Each structure stands twice: as structure tokens, then as C-alpha cells.
């Protein structure tokens, strides 16, 4: 058995799910009415922090059967989007967590796959939350080291394991 860095982490209640912006509609739409889904004007909806949070909230922690959201490793306010730049900050559950790089890498892989390529993505540890913060940050944002890591089949398998339910976006997994 590998060492477990935090055997009994705190579990937080999930954040309220993303509110759908329906308030601008004057008329009540009936979900049972198939005519309701017509496309009105092609108004543009920009990618915002909630959408990015939705992408990464259901990634599993490599150590526990909990999501990053439940462990408060990631949260919507820790994400900033400005233009083509995305900054994602995450908080490990304990300062000596050896899994931080893996968590960061899984966030990066998910965003690489799910965000348009025009974005530059920075993934960092929350300042002061980890004992080797600088090293981890450097590793996570080094393009070549990330690419090298993704050549490692064992590591990729572990990552896929973490990402297996990422598409749930905060919805509880069905049994």
C-alpha cells in the first residue's frame, strides 16, 4: 500500500450548481413542450469561471473516492478568466500532500481537452498552501515536462482514472 498523505480529509458540501440564466425570458417555458427549444438570436455566451469550474469540479482526488469539489481543492472563486488567459488555483488538503502535482496535472489535462486552444492556462497552488509550492508550480506550467509526463502510460492511466467522471460536472454519480 502506498503512503496515504491525508487519511481522513474534511468533506465539504457541494456548491450550489450553476444557475441557468433563464431570467431574461418573459414567458414561462414548459420543459415538456418540444417547441420551447427553438434557437432565438444567436447570442454569444462567453466562457466564464463557473463554466471552467464545472469542467473540473468532478475530477476525482487520486487518494480518495471524493471529487476535488468535495475536498475544496478547487472552487469557482479560485478561477479567473481574462481574455485568452485562464488562471486556476488549487488548494491541497494538507501542506505535505505528495499528490499535488498529480492533481494539478489532471486539472491541466482536463482543461487541455475541454477548452479551446486559444486559452493560455496557468495552474498554480494556492500561495502558502504547500511546502514545495514553487517546485510544483514550475512543474505544472512547464510545457515540456507536462508533455513528457503524458508520454508515461502508467501515469496517463492514473490520470484517466481521476478524470473518469469529470463529465458529471457536479451532478451526483448515478449507481
Amino acid at each position, binding site marked *: 500500500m502506498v503512503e496515504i498523505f491525508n*487519511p*481522513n*480529509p*474534511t*468533506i*465539504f*458540501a457541494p456548491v*450550489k*450548481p450553476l444557475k441557468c440564466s433563464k*431570467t*431574461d425570458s*418573459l*414567458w*414561462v417555458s*414548459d420543459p415538456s413542450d418540444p417547441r420551447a*427549444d427553438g*434557437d432565438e438570436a*444567436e*447570442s*454569444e*455566451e462567453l*466562457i466564464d469561471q463557473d*463554466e471552467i469550474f464545472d*469542467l473540473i469540479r468532478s475530477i476525482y482526488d487520486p487518494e*480518495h*473516492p*471524493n471529487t476535488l469539489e468535495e475536498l475544496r481543492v478547487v472552487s469557482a472563486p479560485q478561477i479567473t478568466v481574462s481574455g485568452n488567459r485562464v488562471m486556476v488555483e488549487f488548494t491541497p488538503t494538507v501542506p505535505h500532500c505528495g499528490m499535488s502535482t498529480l492533481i494539478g496535472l489532471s486539472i491541466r489535462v482536463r482543461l487541455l*481537452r*475541454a*477548452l*479551446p*486552444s*486559444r486559452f493560455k492556462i496557468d495552474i498554480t497552488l494556492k500561495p502558502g498552501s504547500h511546502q514545495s509550492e514553487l517546485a510544483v508550480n514550475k512543474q505544472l506550467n512547464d510545457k515540456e515536462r507536462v508533455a513528457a509526463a503524458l508520454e508515461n502510460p502508467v501515469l496517463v492511466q492514473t490520470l*484517466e482514472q481521476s*478524470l*473518469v*467522471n*469529470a*463529465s*458529471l460536472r457536479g451532478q451526483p454519480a448515478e*449507481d
Partner: protein
Amino acid sequence: MFWLGIQGQCPGQGGKGQGNAVACQSHRFLVSASYQYTIHACGSLSDHWREGSLKNISQGTMASAERLVTTWMASGRDEEVAEAVTEVSDGRLLGLVKALGTYLTSEEDALRTKGVDFLATVISSCPPNALNRQSVKVLTAFFCDKLDDTETIVPALKGLASLPPICAQGDALVIVNAVFKHVNMRALVQSVRFLVFSIIDGLIAHHRETLKEMKRAFIAPYIALADGEKDPRNLLVAFAIARVILIEFDPAEHIEALSNILFCYFPITFRPPPNDPYGISADDLRVALRQCLCAHPAFGPLAIPIFLEKLAAGSPTIKRDTLDALTACFPVYGRALARMEARKLWNAIKLEIFQPIDPTTEAAALLTLQALVVTIHAADDDGDAEEVKGLAHDACEECIGILREPEKSMAKPAIKVLCAFVATTPSVARYTLAHAVPHLLKLLADPNEVPTRHPVLLLLSDLIAAAREAGKADSNVISESSNDISESAPPLAPYKDAVLGALVSGVAAPATTRAALAGLTGLVSTPRLLSDAELGFVVLKVNEVLERCFEEGGADDSNAILKLLMTISSTAPTHVRDLTLPMLLRALPASAPPRAADAERTRYQHVLSALSTLSTPPPLCETLVAGLVPLIGALALGDSPQEDSAMPPPQDADDSEPAAAYLHALLATLRRTLAGKVDDGHADVAGYADTLVPVLYGLAVRAALHGHAGTPMREPRVLGVVGEIVGLVVQSLGPARQQTFAAALVPAFLEGKIAAICAAEHVSSDDRFLPFTADAPPAVRNLLVLFEAGVVPLDPTVALSADTSACAEAVLERGLAHAETARQAEAVCRVVGSIVNKHVDELAPFLEHKEMTYWAERVADPTSGPVRRREAIRAWTWICKGLLVRNHPRAGAFVERLFSVFGDADKAVGAEAAKAFGELAAADGVLTKRNKAVVKFLWAQKFASGILPRLMGGARDGSDPAQQHAHLIALTALLKAIPHAAYAHEMAQLLPLLMRALQLPDAQIRSGVLETLLASVSASLPTSGSAPASTPLPPSSSPSPALAEHAPALARQVLAHAAPPKDAPTSVRTRLAALRLLAALPAAVRYAVLHPARPAVLRGLAAALDDPRRAVRREAVDAREIWFKYTG
């Protein structure tokens, strides 16, 4: 091959036990075969009969028996066996034996084998009453003799296998002793060993008492016989035998030997070979073995260490198997042993709960724990036993210790353990609750623990739910034994007040609302726990939270609150009616909030959705209608009370849309409630025909006649909802009541006698209301929707007028002639379609006219104008549909006419006729069973299968591009409308056509095609496509070859629709359908087929990730994820 690995060694081997050595040596069973050719014994068979009574056998039969035997010896055919069986059944066994005589005693090995084999085959095929007692005895002796001969042992066993059901007690002894003496299992192949087990099994089934009396003389040799068996087929029988021996025989002195031949198989790691013809699964073996392991209490001390070892080291399957075995064994092994080993067992099971491998194993571990606790503490229930000692006590303490940190991840399994305890014995449940509930309450009360209140309340609600389930299980037990259900108090009763207080204060604090609601839901759904007054108190408190939810505009908690209120109203509706509904009705504004007031609008929408959710039970619905109708009345005519006040309207008076939208929302609430009631089959819906319906008709007519352009009740969308409400009510009327309604409705619209169906305060008999005339204003004509709503649900037995044909003609002609909007025309068409469907027998002149003149004049004649022609096609479609749905013979001729305009000079007319095929086959809200339409079973499938080949042929035929184009449109429209199963067999031909249709310019057609393709791709998956973007399933065993053939091209083509180049015509619906189709492909097509497309798809989907619409991006992300995981 078909081998089963024997796991591990004999229990305790290498340990201290001395006795084990014997058992382990038993594998070295020596083959002591000194075969002697004892042919002389065989000769005695026919001699036996000579002494018997069967002496008078005619020469003829002898000859026939001899002929049979010699033929069989040469051919080995089944016919001779069958004939011989008849011979024997007729009582001529001796003849057969005589004929066989030389073979049975032949010096030649092969002949002897064959002879015995023939006899055995015949005997085993004989019906059970064919042989008499004497013959059985002789046959038994004969076959037993033959066991000693290596050449004849196989057929002899075969013969013996059929004897146990018919042999006498003495013969049984002979058989079993002979088998034990002569059979050496190691020298025999599987099928023969199977015969041996079958013989023993048969003897156990039919001569159990005899074998029991043998005691040691049976058990010990049997153990030697069964030792070392490895074939799963044989093991299934061996396990069944072992279970009988363990339970019914007296195996006390053989326990160790028996455990050696059973525990060596645990855990079963057998995996059946692919295409296993015997269909034995690992689970069959597991269950059979488990039944043995838990068959005798004396196994306990030997078994527990083995189980613990396997549990600690095994794979998930082994763990689960071990846990299931433990669960089955605890009650048998007994309390004393369970007590002694409790600590070790708890430590092992705990690990599976606190660090579970998977949820199934965790659930199995919890069940095992429950079995253990029940075994240990079942006897405690005699006294009141306030103090529980032993495992439950220790484990409880331990879990409560963990619960000191309720926010940590370990708290969850800890509460699961406690919940499992609650579901065991009453005393343990009492003890657990007595310790856990006060502990949690104390944490809640502790001001230092404020941040953890939410998790604590969640834990508490888990416990409440467990207590509720335990109480239910108890009351089931009680209700079986006696009727005093009401006597037993729910287990949570002692803490009711404190828990209720904690939850109510928790629900008031925003941070803990959700958890407290879960707890309250558990509390109110516990039978006999809360008093009526307490339920009222809960409703009152929850109302406050609901109000707060609406103030904050958050609907997050309101769903949970509504669920709680609905739980309460299912048992005590009065509280919700008297407290919640008035509160909600009060929260509705008297007039519509202005356009800019988003927050207020959202608020009333939430309130209304809460109202419609809660008001389904009859008394509540009455309150809702009584509360909403005055509001609707005040809003409908636009003269809101606001105008009387001195304050001027906040925005320009012309903007009537918010008022109409508010009215629409109010009516939609009524519609939702009534629809829910119709679904649940409530009887009180019909009652609204006399109250609600006249008011709504009255308001609509009054608004149309006397209102102005902005009157909210004139708004078509509002009228649409009114129509749906009327439809729901009329649907639930009986035919007699429908007849009175129709008698007033039809003259009201056709002859202007409108006052008869309207409430008197809105419409007087002087009002002129003639929607079917040319000079009717548009507002009046819009009310045709309400005519449709009243007519469509009528029963076929209801007469619309004296001359139905003329009535239909009038509706169609006068209605369509002046229709200004599509909705008006649609209402007319639907009415006609419904009348045609229900009254076709009275419509001969009408249909005659349509077939003879209408089509030629209105559709085929190009001078009648494109708009009118298209309208006539729509009317035609509905007439066709009315006929088609009831499989009427005239339908074919009507449909046929549609083809005649496919090549029309006006392309729009051809397209309209082509699209009609989709309309024809699609399900609609008019011709349904609920609307009492005559609907024949599978009519759409029948129609589609008839028309499909023709459409496909037309779509392939390129001689006339216009025809081909129309056929293609018709084909796509039809496929969109019918279920996939109706055209699945044609998929190979359809795919190229559909892919061509993807290039049609019409975005609606394209999205329709994409959706059709999606339906056919998901239908070819083993499980339905409901699973979200999880890992792509391995492709099904038989993916459609047509799909595989076209998949790469399809993927590339669809990709172009998913991420269209800039300025290309597209729609959200098309893009969504394309992305969903792309996401479905990997699961339906093998990787080897589709892998060349993967890089292109991944690149293309990267472009779709930047779609302007969020919903599209979401699908794109999911689809891309699936393609990333799509590997060989």
C-alpha cells in the same frame, strides 16, 4: 479446458493440528486395481429369470429381440434402442437379455462393453414403471458385478444411474457398497465421474434413510470418493450431496474430513470458458459451496480463520464472496463462536467499510456486520437489557469516537455502520440510537462546532432514515404475527422532541437548510412518529424557509422543501392546504410586474411552480383554483385594479406583454396541476367542467369581443394554454356529459350561440360571435383554438350535429377559407382530422367530395395560389391521418394523392407534400387514446413499412431531380417521426440516403436527419444511450455492418455540421444533434473501423469547443472526452 483450480491447501495445514495430516494424505489414494475378468458372473443374469415367472416367451419375440441386438451391434443407431425400450416396457426384458447373452459374457472386451452398454442405454431410457421389483434387483446385481471389470465399468455405471428411483432398499445398499468398493475416481474421466455422483445423488434423494443408517460406512468412503474432484459440473452435484450429509446425516466425527473436501474450494476462482455449453457460472458454484460451508456449526472454528485470511488478501470478487459466505455462516456457526471471534471479525469487516474497494463490497460488508451483530445480540432481547455489551457496544463506541470529527471523510462510513446497527435487533437499535443521537445533538448545540453543523445534520438525517426503515421492518414483522401495529413506537420516539427542535432550528439557518430538510423529510415520513400538531409546526417553519427562498430568488432548496411538503401532504394534506397554499397565493402579485422587474418575475414563476407541484391532491387543487381564478379574471381583461389607484402605471400602457405573460404563467400553473391529476387518475378533474371551463371560455370570448389589441386574454399563447386546460377537463368527462357539452359547444362556434358555454357574468346572449364567417375579426377567429380544445377530446359516440358530414365540411371550408394565421388553420385541420377519425362512417359524402373534387381544385390546380395550396395540403394531411390512425381502407388512396405533387413546378408545394409524410407518421396530441380517438395498434409502423420502399426507391432514382428531392425530404421526415425499430432492417440502404440528405440546404431537415442517425446509432448499442459521457462501452457483439461500413465517412461529414465554418448556415439544434451523434459513434463502432477518423474528429471538435453557445460547448467537451478515451 474445463478445470477448476483447487485453491490453497487443506485448512490449517502446516499448523498445529495433527489430524490434518490424515486428510492431506488422502490425496494419495492408491489405485488398487487388480482387475480380474470375472465373466462367469455375467452369465448368471438370464439364469435368474429362468427361475422367475417370465418363462413363456414366444419364439417370435425372441427372434425380434435378437434381430434388434444384432442390428444395434452393427449400427449403434437410436432406432433400435427405442424399439428395445418398447420391448422392455411390454415386459419382455428377458428376451432382450437372452438375445444379448453372448455379448454380455463375450471374451472379447469390445463386444462385452458394447453389450453392457446397450443394456444400460435401454434401461436408462425405460419409463420408471417398466421394470418390476425382481428385474430391478437382478439388474442391480448385474451392473454392480460389472463394476469390477475395467471394460464394463462405464456402461455399468450408466445403467446404475437410472436405478436409484426404482430400486428397493436392499438394492440401494448393494449399489452404494459396490460403488465404494470398485470405483476409483482418479482412473475415470469427467463424464463417468459425473455418473458416479449422479448415482450417489439419486440414492440420497430416494433412499436417504437407508444411507443414514449406514453412518460411518457411508460418509467416510464418500469423502474418499469426492476428494480431489475438480470439474465444476461434478462439483455442483458433490456440493449438493455434501450439504445433505452435513445437515441430515450425523457427520460429527467426519467434520474435519468434510471441511477438507469443501474448504479447499473456497474461494471459487473458476471462470467459465467462452461459449460454455454447460452454462455453469462461477456464481452457481459459489452459491452451492456457500450452502455447504454454512451447513454445519462445527465448521465454525475451522472456517473463521480461513475467511479472515481470504478477506484480507483477496481481490474484490473474493472479498465479496467471503463476506457473503460470512453473512450466511454466522447464524449457523452460532453466538458463542461469533462472540469469541467478534473483535477479529469486526477489525476485518471494518476495513472493508472504512476503506471500501467499491460500493458493492461495502454494502456486502455492512450486511455481514449486521449478520454478526444479530447473531451475537439476538438473545439479548429477552430482558429490557438497557446495557448492551460485547461487539455492538465496542463498535458503537468506536464509531461515535470517529463522529467527534463529523466533517471528516471517515464520518460517513462510521454513520453507515451505526445505521446498519439500527437495522439489526431492537435492543441494539435502541442502544445505538441512545448513544449516537444525543452525541450528534450535543455537537449541534456546541457553539464551537458551528461550522460542522451541516455535516452533523446530514449524519443525523442518515440515522433518522435508518431508524425509519428499521421501524418499518419491525412493524412488518409485527403485523404478520399480530395486529397491534399501533402499539409499537418507532425507535426514534424517545428523542423526537430534541431531534425535531434541532432540525427546525437547522432549517432556519441558510447554511444548514438543505441537510435539515433531508432530516425533516426522514422524520415526517416515519409512520406514527410525529403528531398532527407537530406536522403543522413543521409546515409552518418550512413555509418560512420557502418564503425566504423566493425572496432570494434561489430555487436550490425549494425543490427539497416541496418534496418535504408533498411527503407531509400525502398523509396530512390539511396543513399544506391551510398554511402553505394561502402563503403562496398571497405571495403572488395582484398585477404583472413590469418588463424590467426580472427579480419579481422570477419570484412569481418560482411561486407558481411551487403551487403547481403541491396542488395535485384534490382538496389542495380546489384551493388553488379558488385562489387563482379571481386573479386570472382580474388580469385577463387588462383592467387591472392598478388603474383605479392614483399612481400612474410605471411604464407606457402599451406594453401589455408582461401582463399577458403573467396571465400565461397563472394558467400554465393550472394546466400543470390538472395534467398531473389526469396522469394520477384523479376523479375531481371532471368537476371543473361546470366551474372553470365556462369562466375561461367567457373570459376569452369577452376579451375577443370587447377587449382591445393589448388585452392579455387575446394573446395566442394564453389562448393556447386555455385550450390545453379545456382539453384536459373535457377528456375526463364521461360520454353522456361530453354529449351535453358538445351540444352547446358546436352551435356556440358555428351558429353564434356562444352564451351557452360561457359564464353569464362575462358574455350575454346579445353578443355576436361568429368565428367562421368572413367578417369575423382576427381576435374572434383566434378562438378557433378553443373550439379545437373542446371538440378533439370528444368520444366517438358523441354526436356533433345531425349531419356530421355537413358539419365537417362547414368547419373545413369556412374555417380554412378565412384563416389568417397558421395556428387558426391548424386548429381547423386538427378538428377535421379528429372528426374524420371518429365519425368516418357518417362522412361518406364528405370524403367522396374530397377525393373527387377537393384535391383537383385546391391542390393540383396551380391557379389557386401557393399559400392556399399549401394550406389545402395540410388539411389533406390531417384527413389522411384521421383515416390512417384507424387503419381505414380509404387511407391508401388519400396518401397516394400526395405523391402526385412531388414533382410540382412550385418546389414549396412539393416540399410541403413531402414533409406531410413526417406529420402523418408522427405522434401528435390530437389523435390519442386519451382524446378517445380510434387508434389501431402499431398503425404507424404499418404505414411506414408500407411506404418506406417506395420513398427509398424514389430518393435513389435520379431521373427527375425534383421528384428525387421531394422523395428524399419525405424519407427524412418519415424516419424522424417513427421509432428506429421500424426501419432498422433497412439501415444498410438508408444510410447512404441519409448522408446525402445531410447536404440539403434546409437546416431543419438536416437536424432531423442528424437526430434520426443518432437514434439509430444509440439503438445499436447494448445499453441505451442514456449513460452520459462515461467511458465508451466495448462495441456490442453485433454492430450493424452498414454502420461500420459508412462510419468513417459519416464521422467526417457530421463533424462539418458540429463545427461549421464561419458564416455557414447552421443552428444550435443542428450543432447539438451533430455533437451527440459524434459522441455516440465510438460506442457503436469498433475502434479498428473508426480509428482513421480519430485525429480529424479530435481536431474538429477542438473547434467546436469555442462555440458561442454554452450548451453546444458542453456537448462538444463530452464528445471530445469520449473520442480521447476511444482506443483499441
